[in-house]
């Protein structure tokens, strides 16, 4: 187990380095000049050179990359004459467009993304798994067909369509909800939940469709296994056979997938966050890419990569806990 974690950690570090290097290469290949974007159109050659110097853009690319890595482990200073900003380790860089260290930018937005993802995951698990189980137990009958039809529709609808429809229906037409504005959980839990309701459902609908299909398949497979016949032959109640024995086999892959999806959506819910104006990580990625804010994009890439790798490792660990036959090496 320890060996497994160590190996996993080592491979993660290498993977993240490669990813960040890749992001750097892409950005140097871009025709846009970050100094112009920081300064605005009115800047002259002297000012541009000064900004270039402060950002470190006048140095060779590999030196910039090295400084970036250095910042992560020991911190770094951004200076131009008297104007010095210190960025303590772990420093993911400094966004001059926002005049903030990247890490604090990410820190501000992480709670938003966490709120969105956690709530949506609870919803999609509850809806998806129960619909899937129902579908499997009524296989071939009306309920099964209905669930299948709805999930194909839900899975097929893009988030900007389903989200927009929900917005129009509940905010524009029925007036049951105000247009969502993010309220931190610590300020007002009720308002937090109320405002996140639509984003949660928007994300959960598409995900629930996938989970319903997965649960249905898994359930049908588990129900046809020999040990289910054993328990029937020993007179266990059907509810218990399904609820305890078939569920266990069905849920194993679902738990694994959830951990993975959680990591992925935490940093990748760009459409939902943009649509509902939620200041989360996904929105930050979109904004900083548009602004060619390289430090932010590089920092986010690192965080996103780390989140997905951590989620995957968590999935593997969970798998080993749920299924004792799995040995991690």
């Amino acid at each position, binding site marked *: 187990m320890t*060996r497994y974690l160590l190996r996993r950690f080592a491979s993660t570090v290498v993977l993240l380095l490669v990813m960040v290097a890749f992001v750097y290469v892409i950005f140097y290949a871009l025709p846009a000049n970050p100094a112009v974007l920081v300064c605005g159109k009115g800047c002259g050659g002297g000012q541009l050179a000064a900004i270039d110097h402060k950002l470190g853009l006048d140095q060779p690319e590999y030196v910039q990359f090295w400084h970036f890595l250095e910042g992560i482990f020991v911190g770094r200073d951004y200076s131009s004459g008297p104007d010095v900003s210190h960025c303590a380790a772990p420093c993911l860089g400094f966004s001059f467009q926002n005049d903030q260290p990247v890490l604090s930018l990410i820190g501000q937005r992480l709670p938003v993304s966490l709120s969105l993802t956690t709530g949506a995951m609870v919803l999609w698990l509850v809806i998806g798994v129960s619909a899937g189980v129902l579908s499997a137990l009524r296989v071939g009958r009306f309920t099964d067909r209905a669930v299948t039809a709805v999930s194909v529709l839900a899975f097929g609808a893009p988030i900007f369509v389903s989200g927009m429809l929900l917005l129009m229906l509940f905010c524009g037409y029925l007036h049951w909800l105000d247009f969502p504005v993010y309220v931190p959980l610590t300020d007002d839990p009720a308002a937090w939940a109320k405002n996140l309701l639509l984003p949660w459902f928007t994300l959960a609908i598409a995900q629930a469709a996938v989970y319903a299909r997965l649960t249905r398949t898994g359930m049908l497979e588990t129900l046809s*296994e*020999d*040990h289910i*016949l*054993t*328990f*029937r*032959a*020993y*007179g*266990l*109640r059907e509810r*218990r056979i399904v609820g305890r*024995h078939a569920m*266990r*086999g069905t849920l*194993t892959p679902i738990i694994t997938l959830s951990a993975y999806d959680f990591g992925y959506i935490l940093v990748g819910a760009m459409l939902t966050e943009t649509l509902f104006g939620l200041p989360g990580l996904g929105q930050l990625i979109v904004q900083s890419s548009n602004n060619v804010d390289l430090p932010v994009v590089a920092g986010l890439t690192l965080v996103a990569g780390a989140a997905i790798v951590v989620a995957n490792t968590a999935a593997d660990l969970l798998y080993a806990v*749920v*299924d*004792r*036959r799995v*040995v991690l*090496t």
Partner: protein
Amino acid sequence: MSDAAVLSVRDLTVEFPGDDGSSLRAVDAVSFDLAAGGALGIVGESGSGKSTTALALLGLHRRSSARVSGQILLGDDDVNALDDEAVRRLRGHRIAMIFQDPLSALDPYYRIGDQISEVYRTHSGASRRAAWARAVEVLDRVGIPDAARRARARPHEFSGGMRQRALIAMALACEPEILVADEPTSALDVTVQAQILDLIDDLRADTGMALLLVTHDLGVVSRSVERVLVMQNGRAVEQGPVGGVLRAPAEPYTRALLAAVPRLDGPAPSRRTPSGEPLLTVTGLTREFRRPGGGLRRDVLRAVDDVSLDVRRGETLGVVGESGSGKTTLARMIVRLLTPTSGSIVFAGQDITDRPERELRPLRRDLQMVFQDPVSSLNPRRTVGDSIADPLRVQGTDDRAALRTARELMERVGLDASRHDRYPHEFSGGQRQRMGIARALSLRPRLLVCDEPVSALDVSTQAQILELLEDLQEEYELTIVFVSHDLAVVRQVSDRVAVMHDGGLVELADAEELYASPRHDYTRTLLAAVPALA
């Protein structure tokens, strides 16, 4: 229903409706009685309806589309007429069942003790603590050592024999009147089988429960039950006391079935004793595998350990052993599908021990293999003709000639050559094994290594395949290495027999001599474990 019968089945019929409105009658008007404390064996080949019958006794067809008619009288209750809830309460409580594959028959996620307690609690309403105590008690009763601790294990931590014991313990938990055992030992090694059958005998004597034993193995029936029912195509062909039926069968089908069973006793099959020079010589052959999860430590499993033997030109060398004895690994090394860790293989005067694949290719003509599972060893997406012709194509024969040879070979092994453009799933198990043999013969090999070639087949099909191999051996001047766990089959086909145990060669002798006077203790144990027929 007769007085002493604990179970009385009358005109049991099970039909499965097909898609086109027709229906398949898997069990057709079968009637039998099981005396209290008695033991009845149901024997038959695959598709005879014996397992379908067993499942019907517990009402286990209720959730399928099967139509069950007739009476299944368990005491005064007709299982077929009771409502679902009443049948559920009977299951495990008055009539319990154990299955062929004890690994898949237990839930992999839960502790064995929990699974047994769960069954016990369902029927007795006992407390958690009492149920756990009962689980430990029955596990102890079926001979699980250190039962209190082992009850906490999950099924994958048990060996095959222990799993079957655990399943028997589950059956025992509620002290049922009847134990239905569906091929309970078919997945087990012969020595483990003997232990499990002894255990069942012992429990019967102890608890007075009646046994209904479903099996394809006439030896097991002869050893374990008092009465036997022979089934064929869903019908009861013959039934009576086991001694009578097996010694003096009244029906032609029973006689044919008995004749097909290879035996350990009786006259030895007449075989020439080839004294030819060796075609293949292996010396000090060893193969190690790294154990999974071993990590950096060199934790290796020595699957074959220092085996030396030769195979003489024109003979059949039988290789017997239980699972894990290394016989398959040895077979694969001989045809160089596996490279030995150490030792040498000399084939027809050439050392092929670690010759690279490219240089080995011309020799592949001479070394061919027939595999156990005729389903998975044929590509399901290639026609039979193509599969048989493939080795020829690989060796450079042009397409038309290869296909022509394939058709000739199909005729030779008893297949209809006009079906060369069909796919494997359209054929029966026996026919598929014929294809496997035809494919192996396509290059006219000198050495044919057969790894459990008949283990997946019914006895009558098995007899046909064995006969085919014998004919082909003469016609193609084949030297055969015949690997099997079945001592009786090996006796029937082999000139000499090698016994393997834990990767090592225990004994190698002329077949007749080995079976008549085994020298090694392990060989004696193995032979003693085989249930004798009548």
